[in-house]
């Protein structure tokens, strides 16, 4: 089966005074009808990757032919217009004309996507209905709430009924209700057979939505599999998160040396550990703290999740990375 999206060996380095390697050899495939998430902390290279997949940035190695981006078999590098007609891009920030109404925005973008005549009218009406803004379609975007703007931002990318849709952190900075509405919308798109590339730094979203997840860190994909298979990477390890009544660094060395602790990372005021068996390790942690006259103020035990996977793979917590 031909992948909906094929990404091969993307490299991107920004030279702005100093050299910053934002994307370093990223490759993956997304199957038709699949929700594929790029999960990683801020600065991991997700947006740079999406920018290259949207033809906003050229991979450094595109001229040498060692990289490739294919959408439904069409190369974005050699046939950019044909390939771009197959994708819809939802940018991270709201990219709409604030001084135009939702309808005017949608009509303009429909024309940009190549829709014509009656097709424009029909699709604009359908999208307005889909995003639930038919009643307020003639109001200027500037008067909308953040959530409503987000919905129009997504609606624009759906106008031409693309085969593949990219959503770059579409839930950043919105209220829980709007967030829920967007997540439900993404699942609805999948149910309609659309392929979705979704980037997020919220592991709960990736976990809930994705058929497969690629974890990015420092411009590289460090793991790429289904949620279940990623969890298996950490085996039976449990994540224990502890707070103490002293500086967290005080207990780093004593706890690292405790038997059964495989990974330790400090996340602001908390100390995160990956342990083989929490029932055996926890008493040792308390003993070590007591030996230094330090009191443990909170303990949280978590079954393995994507946060645990990231901690296992990078030695750092996802939020702190």
């Amino acid at each position, binding site marked *: 089966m031909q992948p909906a999206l094929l990404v091969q060996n993307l490299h991107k380095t920004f030279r702005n005074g100093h050299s910053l390697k934002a994307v370093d050899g990223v490759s993956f495939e997304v199957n038709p009808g699949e929700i594929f998430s790029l999960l990683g902390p801020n600065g991991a290279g997700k947006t740079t990757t999406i920018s290259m997949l*949207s*033809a906003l940035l050229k991979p450094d190695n595109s001229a040498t032919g060692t990289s490739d981006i294919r959408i439904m078999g069409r190369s974005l590098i050699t046939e950019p*217009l*044909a390939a771009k007609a197959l994708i819809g891009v939802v940018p991270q*920030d709201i990219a709409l004309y604030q*001084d135009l109404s939702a309808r005017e925005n949608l009509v303009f973008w429909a*024309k*940009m*996507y190549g829709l014509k005549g009656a097709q424009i009218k029909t699709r604009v009406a359908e999208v307005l209905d889909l995003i639930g803004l038919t009643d307020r379609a003639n109001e200027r975007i500037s008067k909308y709430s953040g959530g409503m703007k987000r919905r129009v931002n997504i609606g624009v990318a759906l106008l031409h009924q693309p085969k593949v849709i990219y959503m770059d952190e579409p839930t950043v900075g919105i209220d829980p209700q709007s967030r829920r509405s967007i997540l439900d919308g993404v699942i609805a798109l999948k149910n309609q057979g659309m392929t979705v590339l979704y980037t997020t730094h919220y592991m709960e979203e990736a976990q809930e939505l994705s058929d497969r997840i690629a974890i990015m860190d420092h411009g590289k994909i460090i793991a790429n599999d289904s949620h279940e298979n990623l969890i298996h990477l950490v085996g039976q390890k449990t994540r224990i998160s502890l707070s103490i009544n002293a500086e967290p660094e005080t207990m780093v060395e004593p706890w690292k040396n405790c038997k059964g602790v495989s990974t330790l990372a400090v996340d602001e005021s908390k100390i995160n550990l990956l342990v083989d068996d929490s029932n055996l390790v926890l008493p040792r942690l308390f003993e070590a703290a007591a030996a230094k006259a330090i009191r443990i103020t909170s303990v949280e035990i978590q079954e393995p999740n994507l946060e645990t996977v990231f901690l296992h793979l990078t030695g750092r917590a996802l939020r702190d990375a």
Partner: protein
Amino acid sequence: MKSLTIALNDMRRSFRNTFALLFMFVIPLLVTGMFFVMFGNIKDNDAPTLTAIKVALVNLDSGNAQTGQLGQTLVDALQSEGLKDLMEITLVEDAAAAREMVDAQQAGVAIIIPENFSDSFSDTAAKIEIEFIQDPTLTLGPQVVRSVVNQVLDGYAGIKITVAESLKMAESGTLHYEEINRIVDEYMSVTEFSSDKTPMIDLRTPATLPERSPMLALVGPIMAGMMIFYAFFTGANSANSILREDEEGTLQRMLTTPTAQTEIMRGKIYSVGLTVIVQITVLMLAARLIFGIQWGLLTSAGLSALAIAVAASTFGILLVSFLKNTKQSGVIFGGLLTVTGMLGMVNIFTGNPQGAPLGIVPLFTPQGWATRAILATMDGAAVETILPFALVMFAMSILFFVVGVARLKSRFA
């Protein structure tokens, strides 16, 4: 086609923006309106007049037996009915008294006809000379008198040739000396010299245009200046939409659609040009309807307006190509466009539309050429007269466009 969609979208946004509308239409018309109200007491029927200049005229010519009293003929010519509105002649006995009158500013000009004036006509080698003394503080009046005297003397040059030829014929015996006076009179009658039938100076406005009132002669250039000044602001502000859209993310979003980068750039350029053309057209029509300003011949006005629109648009694109973000645009537009605008339109701002207080400096700015073109158009110049100004503006525009677009293309590539 998509480029037109982009251009129309930009224009819709511009014409919905209150600030843009203020700068495009309201302020230029408001400023002109202020002048219109301030000078509203100048009546339309106050026709332009020249105050008659006082002339002290001394005729020392003693005459000549063959040519007669040509000095007196000159006096009669200067005192003719047709010149009464221009010159107030006082006959003075001697040259010193005439000079004193000029020194004392009792006369603006003294004309002294020398003793041998008539003799110089019979002597073929002699020069015809008249002494002309003027008050150095006056400019226009003495120039008018000098022009009239030169015109008369040009006619006398013909008489001199007639006399010289007649004398040759008399010396060879083919003509009696008594006949020379008759021939000179005949020549003067044929050429209608010294008669009152033909005025020496004919003041008239171009035949194709209705006469302009003095108030419109004042308000017209101000409206033209405002239009040029704000057209360049509009050009820059419209071109600034490239940076605005870059910051708003809509430019990047456009690049993710199946639209070529060149088409997006073309749309942006169309929007700048069309916005300025709409602004200039509306301002010219509004100024015509509200203030009655005459813009000259339709073809000339059209060519001037087009050249100004192209220059303003491309200058805006050039300026924007050097800016990093919209935060810089306020300072750069405010500073640079005000300086180049003031330099280019210094003639209008100093209330001296025809003069050139800064010499050729205004011609280093596109606004300077725009001012020249539009003022000449308002004076009724034909399209051939406007064409050189327009060509200079088009040449400047090509330079602005090539540099500006190359910089923007490399930036957004």
